[in-house]
């Protein structure tokens, strides 16, 4: 009996020859390399050809990439702080010719006397605020490097009321408990959504001056948003309405495949 068992046991393996060792390791490693490479290529094809996201408040990006943008936003929101300020410059360094990129929603002239800023409160009440009312609030100037998502930037000089001062004056504290601010042009052709921490950043302005003069139409007369913690696409010109919400308000460029957060 014993002998039968011992026969079944494996005979001691012959040590592999050097050639066998080489080809064995080559086979394993190149096999792994080719399989892993194929998987990676397949993964890339999947991502590259993945369908566009369903149109919600954001649109125009590949669905998985939109999810990634939103996750990345969460990561970088953690480093956002009101103590992190945009660098400011002496006003002599501000550009005399302020670059003008786009005026969707702010084309043509506007009757500034007839214009009223509408602030939609949570209660449903709508405040109608004139430019003179806004100018009566404490004025803040900022000279900083305005940054466009395209990659250019320009030091420019803006003046207006701090968003936080505006909020305090109009007793909108309850509204700031919500997560987002939405702004839109009077014709609602251009609109942005801003997360509340960025809106409440001490350098966020409702600006009515550029280079110490009133805003010309192309820079958003009579009142525009200047938010240095965001790319230019969020700096809406010619504000018509301000609203507050716990959901992301519609955002023009987030519907064109850009990151909703677009924070700096």
């Amino acid at each position: 009996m014993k002998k039968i068992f011992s026969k079944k046991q494996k005979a001691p393996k012959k040590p592999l020859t050097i050639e066998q060792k080489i080809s064995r390791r080559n086979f394993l490693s190149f096999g792994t390399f080719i399989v892993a490479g194929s998987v990676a290529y397949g993964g890339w094809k999947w991502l590259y050809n993945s369908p566009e996201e369903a149109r919600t408040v954001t649109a125009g990006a590949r669905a998985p990439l939109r999810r990634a943008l939103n996750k990345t936003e969460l990561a970088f929101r953690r480093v956002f702080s009101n103590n992190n300020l945009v660098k400011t410059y002496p006003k002599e360094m501000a550009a005399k010719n302020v670059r003008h990129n786009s005026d969707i929603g702010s084309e043509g002239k506007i009757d500034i006397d007839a214009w009223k800023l509408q602030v939609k409160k949570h209660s449903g009440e709508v405040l109608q605020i004139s430019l003179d009312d806004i100018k009566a609030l404490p004025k803040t100037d900022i000279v900083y490097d305005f940054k466009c998502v395209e990659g250019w930037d320009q030091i420019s000089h803006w003046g207006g009321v701090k968003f936080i001062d505006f909020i305090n004056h109009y007793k909108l504290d309850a509204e700031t408990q919500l997560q987002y601010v939405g702004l839109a042009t009077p014709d609602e052709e251009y609109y942005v959504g801003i997360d509340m921490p960025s809106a409440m950043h001490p350098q966020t302005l409702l600006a009515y001056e550029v280079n110490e003069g009133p805003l010309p139409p192309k820079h958003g007369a009579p009142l525009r948003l200047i938010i240095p913690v965001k790319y230019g696409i969020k700096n809406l010109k010619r504000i018509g309405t301000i609203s507050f919400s716990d959901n992301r308000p519609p955002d023009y460029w987030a519907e064109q495949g850009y990151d909703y957060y677009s924070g700096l």
Partner: protein
Amino acid sequence: MKVIKEKHPLVMRWTHWVNFPILAIMIWSGMLIYWANDEYRITLFGHTFFSFFPDWFYNALHIPHRLSEGMAFHFLFMWFFTLNGIFYVLYTILSGEWRELLPQKKSFKEAWLVLLHDLHIRKMAPPQNKYNAAQRIAYTAIIVMGIGSVITGLAIYKPVQFYYLTWLCGGYHFARILHFALTIGYVLFFVIHVVQVMLAGWNNFRSVISGFEVVNEAPKHIIDITPPPPSDEKNIQ
């Protein structure tokens, strides 16, 4: 007699080959972004020698009007690029592999000799371990460049939150230039790297996949130094 000589550890091989496609995607998506403000050019005495990049180049690679796409890819793959890099650096430190990698005092002098040898100007290359002096410098530099890309990248990605990085990189403009220049550096590295790998041959290339090289180790006492045949030069004719 053929002998298997271990060369590259598994982690080094994986991180190398994981990095390759990630870096390719980062460079490509970076170009989609850069296109939207492609202001860099080489100008000397008022004459522009080269502008980054010519239209034919953009068109051949389908670069134009894809900024948002480029950003979406770039800001996803930056995570993988960074994590893979951190993993490699930690491994290199903890395993002690850094001893084979970091340039030594003599490396900077020796690198010239390696260069002269590779250009067939000098016959002998200095003795080396796993990497020669030029490789030590190049493969350490590429890691430093990778760290530089992450830092300059963060400096232009979040210049307000990471204002100190932007300051460290010499401001927003200079950080963007550095970020771009590093990318050009990768491309130049890639070209030289691939040429060198092709010149070094199969055994060397295989070692970055299989991990080992095959060397002929003749038992020393058998070696007979045979003088070269005197008819050598005549044969050439």
